[in-house]
């Protein structure tokens, strides 16, 4: 029997914007067409750089707390107000994390790593999880200015796939010098404040903000439902680091995918909230995309003339705006517009319009060519029917209340039958069983989570995967830094001239993985995990700013400093124009990338690139990643070409993301997730484990079992070999990506050599290898031998 997937309903909202603290302040500003952009008080700026910005008034977090964390926490509390139970999962879009604090400390010469503890972009989600009591996954996506929308797309799939019953999802970014001066040096800041769609527009207004939505999965709208998140579409231009495809083709594909995913026809949309940053290129490309989808577009506007551009928060703030429009029937105006650019061919709303739109489309696009479109529908729309597909409408049409809404789930036209498998197209009777909850656990037991490995590559101190395996078989540690040559192997000089270490590592890894997979398996989508992002670019940019009194720094370094720049470079190099998602979560960044790949790419039978990498930086690593500043300094990573495991009989990998319990031993949580010790023993011959910072093997411990190995054995009762990854491959955040590639090689060999297994060669006999991590939360990758059907 097929079971209908739960639908995703918005039941709580939180927002902090230039309009003020809280959703009420945003609502009031939207209805009055307010324009609160002004030079920021939080940034110390030379007079000539005091440009209009979107700064959140009325909130001060604790002195040591980075701005993003304070904004996110406040918005999350608003969205969760009155809820007794914590959400099952948290998904955030973040780009800069604790960078404002890091800027201050770095410039002051602070050397104590503890003061940089909140630098990582993933720490915002961790903070919210602790604050809300959420023990499930805390996922962070970093796709520049589409991050907030991508986070909501992830939340939608968590609910549809029953991995969560409720998800807190949103986006946040605080003002900081990095983004302020970065956009200024790119000449993308309008000195008059953002004027989206205006003939004289000269750019965006850098802003801060947070948007949070509490979503629940249910067959029918629950009490208090404000709107339904109906569908999402993610694409990548695979064209240029900052410029959109001139005709807006990538944006158009995102819109079309979102509409198809929502089962909504273009004419059903009653309002479009544009990305509309106010830059010349974005607005032109987006207008082309909108006109390609809608010959006569519905009412539309950009709200960035009000909020400014809060970067990773934009998609989430605009999701809040979409929900307000649907639930309250007021469409916001295109603030800041004076003289409409006739070349755009759009007629944005000049004044607030009182109308229930029924369906709202919300666009968010970002650096790296990332495009994300969300489709929201009125919460109670399901049984109210729908206008016939292709019904004419325009800004002048009046929309009878009874006619707004979208198709019944059963009637949805799915362009690709395989979108999420049979669980989507259920019978009404089956829909009632949405209560069946399959938490984020034991992923590999469910066929759709496992991904077949088509090619794999790693880079370690020993070099490429062949050199690494040869060294390991001789019992040598591969901890160290791949040489510059290894990190550019096979890449033309032109292709890497603007790239520093991390994107070069990523490109070299992908080049080798794709080479191993063969030309028939060219990847369409990219999922990349990195804990620290491009540290070299970030440091170069900030150091140049500090040295010049905030005047000069390289715009190339700014563009390269975003966490998703490496994945953007991968997309361009491999023409991968499907979803392009970068995740960050400390030592489980790669595991999250793999989880997102299995979650988001269900309709992608095409190959995907899934990988993780981090670089060691002489100045920043010892501060932000003290574990990554080990002896010897190490970096590198791993990359795999995978596809959904269908008929394929090859080696498969699957993410394991457990929900913890109070007082849990992290390793025990993993084994419980894998159905207990017995099942664990029978399915995995060996474990490659990445210990916590304190428990990893160090030179002080000498030979014998490390503290990590003893802890793992104690927590799990596992009797097979527990191999210390950090000792073997180096202590850096995404070393588990390299370890996964090593595990794939071992499973392919069918045995763990004596020097690793301890004593004698260990034949796998059809069993797999688990790559286990625990920092900041337990997560693992199950590497399964061909033939293991997953229990």
């Amino acid at each position, binding site marked *: 029997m097929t079971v209908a997937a739960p639908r995703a309903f918005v039941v709580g909202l939180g927002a902090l914007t230039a309009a003020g603290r809280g959703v009420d302040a945003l609502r009031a500003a939207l209805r009055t067409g307010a324009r609160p952009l002004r030079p920021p008080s939080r940034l110390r700026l030379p007079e000539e750089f005091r440009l209009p910005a979107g700064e959140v008034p009325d909130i001060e977090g604790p002195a040591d707390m980075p701005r993003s964390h304070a904004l996110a926490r406040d918005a999350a509390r608003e969205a969760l107000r009155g809820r007794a139970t914590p959400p099952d999962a948290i998904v955030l879009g973040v780009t800069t994390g604790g960078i404002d604090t890091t800027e201050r400390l770095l410039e002051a010469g602070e050397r104590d790593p503890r003061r940089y503890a909140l630098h990582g972009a993933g720490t915002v989600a961790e903070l919210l999880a602790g604050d809300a009591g959420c023990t499930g996954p805390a996922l962070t996506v970093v796709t520049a200015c589409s991050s907030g929308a991508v986070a909501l797309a992830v939340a939608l799939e968590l609910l549809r796939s029953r991995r969560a019953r409720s998800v807190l999802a949103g986006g946040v970014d605080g003002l900081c010098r990095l983004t302020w001066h970065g956009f200024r*040096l*790119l*000449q993308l800041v309008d000195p008059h404040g953002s004027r989206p769609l205006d003939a004289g527009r000269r750019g965006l207004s850098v802003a801060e903000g947070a948007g949070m939505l509490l979503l629940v999965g249910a067959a029918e709208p629950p009490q208090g439902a404000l709107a339904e998140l109906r569908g999402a579409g993610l694409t990548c231009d695979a064209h*240029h680091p900052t410029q959109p495809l001139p005709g807006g083709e990538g944006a158009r594909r995102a819109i079309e995918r979102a509409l198809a995913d929502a089962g909504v026809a273009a004419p059903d949309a009653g309002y479009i909230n544009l990305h509309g940053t106010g830059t*010349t290129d974005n607005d032109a490309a987006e207008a082309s995309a909108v006109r390609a989808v809608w010959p006569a577009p519905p009412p539309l506007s950009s709200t960035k003339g009000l909020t400014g551009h809060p970067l990773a928060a934009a998609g989430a703030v605009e999701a809040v705006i979409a929900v307000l429009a649907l639930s309250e029937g007021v469409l916001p105006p295109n603030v800041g517009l004076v003289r409409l650019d006739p070349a755009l061919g759009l007629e944005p709303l000049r004044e607030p319009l009182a109308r229930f739109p029924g369906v709202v489309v919300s666009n968010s696009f970002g650096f790296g060519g990332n495009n994300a479109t969300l489709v929201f529908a009125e919460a109670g729309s399901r049984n109210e029917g729908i206008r016939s597909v292709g019904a004419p409408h325009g800004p002048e049409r009046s929309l009878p209340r009874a006619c707004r809404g979208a198709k019944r789930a059963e009637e949805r036209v799915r362009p690709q039958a395989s979108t999420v498998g049979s669980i989507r197209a259920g019978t009404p009777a089956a829909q009632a069983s949405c209560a069946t909850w399959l938490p984020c656990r034991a992923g590999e037991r469910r066929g759709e989570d496992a991904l077949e490995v088509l090619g794999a590559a790693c880079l370690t101190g020993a070099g490429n995967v062949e050199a690494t395996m040869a060294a390991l078989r001789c019992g040598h540690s591969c901890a160290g830094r791949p040489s510059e040559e290894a990190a550019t192997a096979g890449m033309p000089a032109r292709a890497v*001239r*603007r790239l520093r270490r991390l994107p070069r590592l990523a490109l070299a890894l992908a080049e080798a993985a794709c080479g191993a997979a063969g030309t028939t398996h060219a990847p369409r989508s990219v999922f990349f995990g990195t804990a620290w992002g491009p540290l070299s670019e970030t440091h170069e940019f900030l150091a140049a700013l500090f040295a010049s009194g905030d*005047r*000069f720094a390289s715009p*190339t370094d700014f563009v390269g400093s975003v966490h998703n720049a490496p994945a953007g470079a991968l997309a361009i190099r491999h023409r991968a124009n499907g979803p392009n998602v970068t995740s960050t979560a400390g030592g489980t960044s790669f595991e999250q990338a793999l989880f997102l790949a299995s979650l988001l790419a269900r309709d992608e039978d095409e190959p995907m690139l899934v990988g993780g990498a981090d670089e060691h930086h002489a100045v920043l690593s010892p501060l932000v990643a003290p574990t990554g500043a080990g002896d010897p300094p190490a970096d590198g990573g791993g990359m795999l070409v995978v596809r959904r495991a269908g008929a394929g009989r090859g080696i498969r990998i699957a993410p394991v993301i457990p929900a913890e319990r109070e007082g849990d031993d992290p390793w025990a949580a993993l084994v419980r997730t894998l159905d207990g010790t017995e099942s664990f023993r029978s399915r995995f011959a060996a474990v490659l484990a990445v210990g916590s910072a304190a428990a990893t093997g160090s030179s002080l411990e000498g030979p014998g079992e490390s503290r990590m190995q003893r802890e793992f054995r104690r927590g799990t009762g596992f009797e097979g070999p527990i191999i210390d990854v950090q000792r073997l491959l180096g202590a850096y955040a995404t070393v588990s990506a390299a370890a996964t590639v090593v595990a794939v090689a071992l499973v392919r060999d069918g045995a763990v050599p004596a020097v690793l297994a301890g004593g004698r060669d260990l034949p796998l006999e059809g069993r797999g290898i688990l790559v286990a991590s625990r920092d900041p939360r337990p997560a693992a990758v199950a590497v399964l031998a061909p033939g293991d059907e997953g229990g």
Partner: protein
Amino acid sequence: MDPLLDELRVKVVEAVGLTDVRPEDIRPDEPLVGEGLGLDSIDVLELVVMLEEDYGVKIDNKELGRKVFASLRSLADHVREHRTPPPT
């Protein structure tokens, strides 16, 4: 011989990281952007920063940029005309 032109050859190659181009290979009249040297919008902004930092020359709009970055020669001409001696 034009010392400023030669100085700019080196600075351009350095500023945008053209490891596959020797400064002396840049022809003074070939386009810097697109066809020709193959620079793009980010490279142009990198040159804008270099011009302001090294010569005190500001280029803050696209129309001017198109004119100035048409070729190495137009770049040198603009710098010659608008440079402000650095404070000593």
